[in-house]
């Protein structure tokens, strides 16, 4: 499948040079774009295809209140400058922007799919590593740096060396208490943070087919966390049902034409991959991280591992360092670890299904005393949908904070930060040192585990509550 999409987008191929790929959709946000627009301006260039480009504000935006009338309420002057720069640049270069307060604003990887802009067989890029999310639709989607953002703006293409391919086949059925997040954390723990490096990974097999689009996005989202260039899932009826009638999905006769083309994308039977990994879905259970990279995870029912048991010397040193940073002792049951903050949100788990799953656990319960729980919808639309369903009332009744859409504590760029020494259970994708705030300690979890953890104040699964 990856090869088909690649071939269909190759504008130019020459020996000894990277292929030149055409880009169907370019997503923009405020943090990695200002220098790219400056570059265009300095060279006197235009945006080649504003009609294939879309921008939103997410990384830096406040989520406690909405600055509807002016940006003056964004107290951090530098954050404000960045958002102002994005608005100026979009106006000057004719790029469509969904600013704060707009119904389509939100985390860029939630917004693209929900508008129906992310479609099977397309190429999607964004100056953000979690662009891999869009691969859930069978798109070839990957994160790029600011120079590449400028390159795409100017030429709508990108020179790329052809990556290798890898298949991850998940056989069998996921147990009912195991989510897509547990699955991807388990895959990363198995393969290691560098296991996918240089490969486009195709997730396949019975358990993947059974996932909803939102769950597939969670899986593809974290492809980058094990080093993969991109993650993809072949489009099928689940994909088409999700896309149908979205604002930018093809309509009428075009819809049928598109679906025919999409069906042809699936990997041919017998096609060869450079690497393969097989996972038995039925063997999995809720999974959480104990360390400072997403590969350092264990089943929730297990204990903090002992670095002395790690064979590889580099990994052993990394594990010891991680435990020191996380202030954990080997042998402590994961269930005994207490948390200060629970964060539900991000492009990994900030979609409506994620909020529903957490609300189901929280309904009729309360967040433990001394624990702060932030619920940050992935987009303004998700927030609106959740309010229609009354989910916000479940969260507020439980004592959680119901906030506005953005990246928020996923990366702690705005004021939503973890204090030094504080510990979180977070549905985001990175548990790096200081990711959620300097000195903060992060355990990556699924939305149901986040909710159960909020209730008990210790890492817990919903099954622990009854």
């Amino acid at each position, binding site marked *: 499948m990856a090869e088909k999409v690649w071939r269909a987008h190759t*504008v130019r191929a020459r020996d000894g040079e990277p292929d030149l790929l055409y880009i169907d959709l370019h997503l923009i946000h405020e*943090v990695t774009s200002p220098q790219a627009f400056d570059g265009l301006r300095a060279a006197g260039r235009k945006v080649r295809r504003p009609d294939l480009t879309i921008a939103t504000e997410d990384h830096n935006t406040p989520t406690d209140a909405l600055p509807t009338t002016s940006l003056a309420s964004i107290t951090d002057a530098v954050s404000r400058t960045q958002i102002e720069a994005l608005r100026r640049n979009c106006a000057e270069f004719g790029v469509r922007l969904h600013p704060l307060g707009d119904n389509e604003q939100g985390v860029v990887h939630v917004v693209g799919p929900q508008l129906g802009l992310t479609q099977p067989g397309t190429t999607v890029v964004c100056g953000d590593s979690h662009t891999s999310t869009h691969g859930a639709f069978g798109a070839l989607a990957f994160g790029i740096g600011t120079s590449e953002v400028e390159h795409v703006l100017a030429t*709508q293409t990108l020179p790329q060396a052809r990556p290798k391919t890898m298949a991850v086949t998940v056989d069998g059925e996921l147990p009912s208490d195991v989510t897509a997040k547990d699955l991807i954390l388990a895959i990363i723990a198995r393969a290691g943070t560098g296991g996918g490096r240089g490969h486009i990974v195709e997730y396949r097999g019975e358990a993947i087919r059974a996932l909803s689009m939102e769950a597939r996005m969670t899986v593809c989202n974290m492809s980058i966390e094990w080093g993969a260039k991109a993650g993809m899932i072949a489009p099928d009826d689940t994909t088409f049902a999700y896309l149908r009638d979205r604002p930018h999905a093809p309509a009428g006769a075009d819809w049928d034409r598109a679906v025919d083309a999409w069906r042809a994308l699936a990997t041919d039977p017998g096609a060869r991959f450079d690497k393969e990994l097989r996972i038995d879905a039925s063997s999995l259970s809720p999974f959480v991280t104990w360390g400072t990279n997403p590969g350092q995870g264990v089943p929730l029912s297990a204990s903090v591992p002992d670095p002395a048991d790690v064979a590889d010397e580099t990994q052993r040193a990394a594990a010891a360092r991680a435990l020191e940073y996380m202030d954990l002792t080997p042998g402590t049951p994961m269930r005994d670890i207490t948390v200060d903050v629970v964060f539900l949100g991000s492009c990994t788990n900030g979609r409506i299904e994620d909020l529903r799953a957490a609300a189901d656990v929280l309904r009729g319960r309360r967040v433990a005393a001394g624990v702060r729980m932030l619920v940050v919808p992935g987009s303004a639309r998700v927030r609106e949908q959740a309010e229609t369903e009354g989910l916000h009332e479940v969260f507020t009744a439980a004592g959680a904070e119901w906030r506005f859409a953005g990246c928020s504590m996923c990366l702690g760029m705005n004021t939503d930060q973890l204090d030094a020494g504080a510990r979180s259970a977070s549905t985001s994708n990175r548990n790096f040192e200081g990711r959620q705030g300097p000195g903060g300690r992060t355990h990556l979890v699924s939305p149901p585990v986040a909710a159960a953890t909020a209730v008990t104040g210790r890492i817990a699964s919903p099954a622990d509550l009854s």
Partner: protein
Amino acid sequence: MRSFTVHTGRAVPLRRSNVDTDQIIPARYLKRVTRTGFDDGLFAAWRADPDFVLNRSAHADSSILVAGTEFGTGSSREHAVWALQDHGFRAVIAPRFGDIFRGNALKGGLLTVELDSATVEWLWDAVEADPRTEITVDLEKREVRVAQRIWQFPLDDHSRWRLMEGLDDIDLTLRDEASITAFESDRPLWLPHTLPVV
């Protein structure tokens, strides 16, 4: 882009693996809208420790960073490259790099040199024993030299040529503009557009 042929300088031994881009520059330092001025954010969390290797006076004026494997994994932020360059680094040596970081670095003129772990260990030991040790990174010959020792490193011809010439990728691509235009005229019309088609 500043071109790169041969560079000789002192090195900082960073004995850590899996140094991700959040470590190289934390998100709260990404708010500038310019391409320079990111030095203050470089390894910000670790630099608070006066004994962190970058703070030691013996390693002032170094221009080569020698790090453990999987350097630059994580976020796509090109600010990580800019911060390293703002600090004066011209090359980073490590056994392996995060893909996006490596791409960003090579585009921006920061050379990423892949040498195996044993060699990196050797370099760490050498630089720690004598911080004045000079390392030469020779892009033309694709080799690293210290005194009499020589190691080869891999780099594809195209990246090497671009770096040596200091060429701008966009100019290179625009030489093929006719192919891009031809490709565009063949795209199916039902593909998504963000703006109304006129």
